[in-house]
């Protein structure tokens, strides 16, 4: 364990902190701007997010893919009596999630900048409230970055909860019709889950304290403690369930997903765009490595849940009347794939699952941005109120088609890589007898179902007769198209050259598998290759 990259530490001691806190500095700058100065506020926010993106670029350039362990580690004691530290670090897995967060934040802020002045209740901040909106958005960026960087359980919890606060206000203030209900449901569901994570974390730290007479919440040390047999399997199971509850709610994993379509259905588009898969990341960073034995015990259950989630959410998506809700259920369905890859507990599955997490950000981000721009024009996303858009908005339709094909995992797009690897990993696990093949087969049908709901929606929205009131829809402006293009480029980049991204993952993934899979598992996995 350990193995910090000392060279990188010396070179750039505080890069992670700068990356983490730059958006917050942006918030303070925004507060200095007088209310109502929309253009200025947008400029400051764009500058802040671009700076953050630049800093993540520094991370990428200086990241050393050849070593395992965490890099750019920073450690400042926070509550030393209880072994709580401000401990940041990233490895190959979190690196790309951090970068993606930065990219999507830039796009979300630009999206807000481009937004036309619309009446209240249309999910878009009015000029007067743009500043407040951007403040929350930047705070959310900091919180998400913190989730991906924190290596101390308490610090992680703090950031995990901190994501709730700006999101709550973004939904409650700028959400749709049922925003109050949606915001509250969102908050309570996720708060409920994460409190049990906190209890489990405290319990774990306390067991560690009883054994070693030292209090710590540091991920690496607790991991080692559990790996050395410090926690009996019975207790491990409970602790794993505590963590899993929080992450499954956040993910969202069926049957804990009911808040997701409600909350995100009402949420403004930029929130949906940058609300990344913190739940999945938390599973792979904390849930499984901390309690490998329990993870193995629960793997069959997890795989079953994930497969059911894939199919159930896909069928539900088919039935939706609203384009946004179709996309939201597609997210739930894809979350199922991510979990299948994770619960395979082998290298293929893990890499697939991480790629799928990135895909989620890229593809879904593009999809929701496009939906938002469509909403600016049509003021509705209800499928049966739309039709024949292809003739009206050719550029929009082309971009939407590309994103949609990535979503249904067409070979050549990122979706294919992610889902293929997830399913392959799951098959390997099934092959070695750890999970039932049935669930893997069931999950695989999800790829077909996604084609059903997506293409059907596409057909109804883009072909057929155009309703009277949509006769003269303007196509995307160049600026709007340019907003989505980077994501479309990423779709094909990951799809055609996945190695560029998985390269930096490999060491971390190997190490992860070593931690998570015990001996018989690794043997089985090696045989299957």
């Amino acid at each position, binding site marked *: 364990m350990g193995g910090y990259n000392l060279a990188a530490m010396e070179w750039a001691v505080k890069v992670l902190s700068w990356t983490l806190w730059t958006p917050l500095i942006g918030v303070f700058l925004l507060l200095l701007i007088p209310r109502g100065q929309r253009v200025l506020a947008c400029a400051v926010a764009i500058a802040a997010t671009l700076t953050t993106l630049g800093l993540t670029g520094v991370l990428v350039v200086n990241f050393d893919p050849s070593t395992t362990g965490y890099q750019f580690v920073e450690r400042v004691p*926070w*509550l*030393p*009596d*209880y072994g709580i530290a401000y401990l940041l670090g990233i490895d190959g897995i979190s690196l790309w999630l951090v970068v993606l967060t930065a990219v999507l934040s830039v796009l979300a802020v630009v999206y807000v900048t481009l937004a036309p002045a619309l009446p*209240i209740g249309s999910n878009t901040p*009015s000029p007067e*409230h743009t500043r407040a909106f951007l403040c929350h958005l930047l705070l959310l960026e900091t919180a998400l970055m913190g989730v991906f960087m924190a290596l101390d359980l*308490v610090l992680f*919890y*703090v950031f995990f*909860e*901190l994501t*709730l*606060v700006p999101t*709550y*206000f973004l939904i*409650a*203030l*700028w959400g749709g019709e049922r925003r*109050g209900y949606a*915001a*509250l449901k969102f*908050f*309570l569901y996720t*708060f*409920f889950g994460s*409190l*049990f994570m*906190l*209890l489990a974390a*405290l*319990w774990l*730290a*306390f067991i560690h304290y009883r054994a070693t007479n030292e209090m710590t919440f540091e991920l690496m040390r607790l991991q080692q403690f559990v790996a050395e047999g410090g926690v009996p399997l019975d207790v491990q199971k409970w602790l794993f369930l505590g963590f899993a509850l929080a992450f499954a709610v956040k993910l969202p994993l069926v049957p804990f997903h009911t808040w997701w379509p409600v909350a995100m259905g009402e949420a403004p588009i930029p929130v949906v765009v940058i609300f990344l898969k913190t739940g999945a990341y938390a599973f792979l960073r904390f849930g499984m490595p901390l309690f490998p034995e329990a993870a193995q015990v629960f793997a069959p259950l997890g795989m079953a849940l994930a497969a059911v989630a894939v199919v159930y959410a896909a069928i539900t998506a088919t039935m939706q009347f609203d384009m946004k809700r179709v996309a939201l259920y597609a997210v739930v369905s894809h979350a199922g794939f991510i979990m299948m890859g994770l619960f395979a507990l082998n290298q293929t599955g893990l890499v697939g699952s991480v790629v799928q997490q990135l895909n989620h950000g890229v593809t879904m981000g593009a999809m929701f941005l496009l939906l938002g721009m469509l909403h600016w024009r049509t003021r509705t996303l209800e499928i049966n109120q739309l039709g024949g858009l292809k003739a009206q908005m050719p550029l929009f339709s082309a971009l939407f088609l590309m994103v949609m094909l990535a979503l249904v995992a067409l070979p050549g797009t990122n979706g294919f890589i992610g889902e293929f690897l997830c399913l392959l990993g799951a098959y390997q696990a099934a092959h070695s007898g750890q999970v039932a093949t049935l669930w893997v087969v069931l999950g695989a049908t999800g790829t077909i179902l996604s084609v059903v709901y997506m293409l059907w929606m596409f057909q109804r929205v883009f072909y057929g007769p155009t309703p009277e009131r949509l006769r003269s829809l303007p196509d995307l402006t160049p600026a709007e198209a340019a907003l989505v293009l980077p994501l479309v480029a990423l779709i094909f980049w990951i799809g055609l050259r996945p190695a560029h991204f998985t390269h930096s993952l490999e060491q971390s993934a190997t190490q992860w598998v070593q931690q998570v899979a015990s001996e018989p598992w690794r043997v089985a996995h090696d045989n299957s290759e």
Partner: protein
Amino acid sequence: MEALNIPQVEWSALLPVLTVVGAALLVLILELFLPRGQHTPLMLVGLLGLGLAGYFQLALWGASLVTWAETALSDNIAVLLNLAILVSSGLVLLFADDYLRARNMRYGEFYPLLLFATAGAMLMISSTNLMVVFLGLEVLSLSLYVLTGLARAEVRSEEAALKYFLLGAFASAFFLYGIALLYGAQGSVDMRVISASWVASMPGKMTNALLVASLALMLVGLGFKAALAPFHMWTPDVYQGAPTVATAYMAAVSKVAAFGVLLRLLSAAMPMLDLWSPIMWAIALLSMLVGNLVALIQRDAKRMLAYSSVGHAGYLAVGLVSMNMTSLTGVLFYLVAYALMTVGAFGVLSLMARAGDATTVDALRGLARRQPFAAFAMAILMLSLAGIPPTAGFWGKWYLFLGALEGGQTLLAIVLALTSVVGAAYYLRLTFSLYADALEAPAARWSVPAPMVVCLLICLIGLIGLGIAPRPLAESSRQAVERMANGEWQVVSGE
């Protein structure tokens, strides 16, 4: 005749309380010579007195004194909690004038009463001698009864004052009876004798029974003051009926004082842990459940906060039941944070005075448009009450969780978690109603008075500051508890 023992006196130990009493007397006299309704000088003198007392109190940090014939003491717990009391009183003093003026209740008595109450609360914490504790309790309570009925033209306020007085007198009687029984058993009214006499006493003997009865009665009395279920019945009516500034004061100060005494008493009664632990366990559980669940259905923000204060008392009781270093540190930390949170929250509600003092959740709708800063402050305060990081409320809960797990109170920890979610529900509902129509066309702005801005800023900076850097308070609390546990006392007396 018997030789009279003249106690050797260490003045510094009582100096903070005496300063507050002095300020109260000064304000009392000053009010007579001021033109009617001119209260700014009273406020200033009061604040000066509290500040001076705070300075003297800080100077006592680290000292462990028992003096005045062992009736007064000063240890770090007393310093910490007294400072919390002084700060809460100061904040209430700051914003009270505006409220009283808006409600047309410019009674100059408000200021001396508040200061006397503060002195009483400080006295309660600064002694292990139960008679002195009782004296402080009565000074605090009597002042609070009057403050509750200050809006004497209003039936609700009168009703609240009467209810509070009757039930409070009843509770005081319980407490006093407990003290009497302790005296009967041991011939001393110092709570530190409980431990030794319990160890010495035999089961089934009279002393033994008297001690049990005494502790039970004292728990009832203090449970009432701390608003622990099932002794919480008065809380919603009194909190709602009292003028909001008085509510702010009593919610913060009497909770701190009552829990300060409970903490001392129960640690003194450590050998009887097996006896009182199940009782406190049940009280904690009941308080958390009743407080939070009933708060969920309240329509009035003051009633809601009243029930939520029962819930918070339950959380604190979890810390007392667990009875270990971590949990007691948590109790101290939580008390300080809670004082700031409640004073701030009721302070914001007191702004409603100019809208007919309606405090229903519906009446608060759209406050964000009228007073953006107050609404923002309320949102942060609510998040802190709900225990969301990075606010002080989070660390308080964190300590209580860890303490409960350490003390083997897993069930209480789980209930604490579940009821926190319930708590978050109503805190957020209140927050949402502040912001419900925030984006409509801006309504006429109400200016937030400058003292209120100062007060809210202090609360916010304190809560977020403690959320980001909990270390100073956490470590001071821990030191305080450790010193109490080690029993490091430096007795300054005549012999």
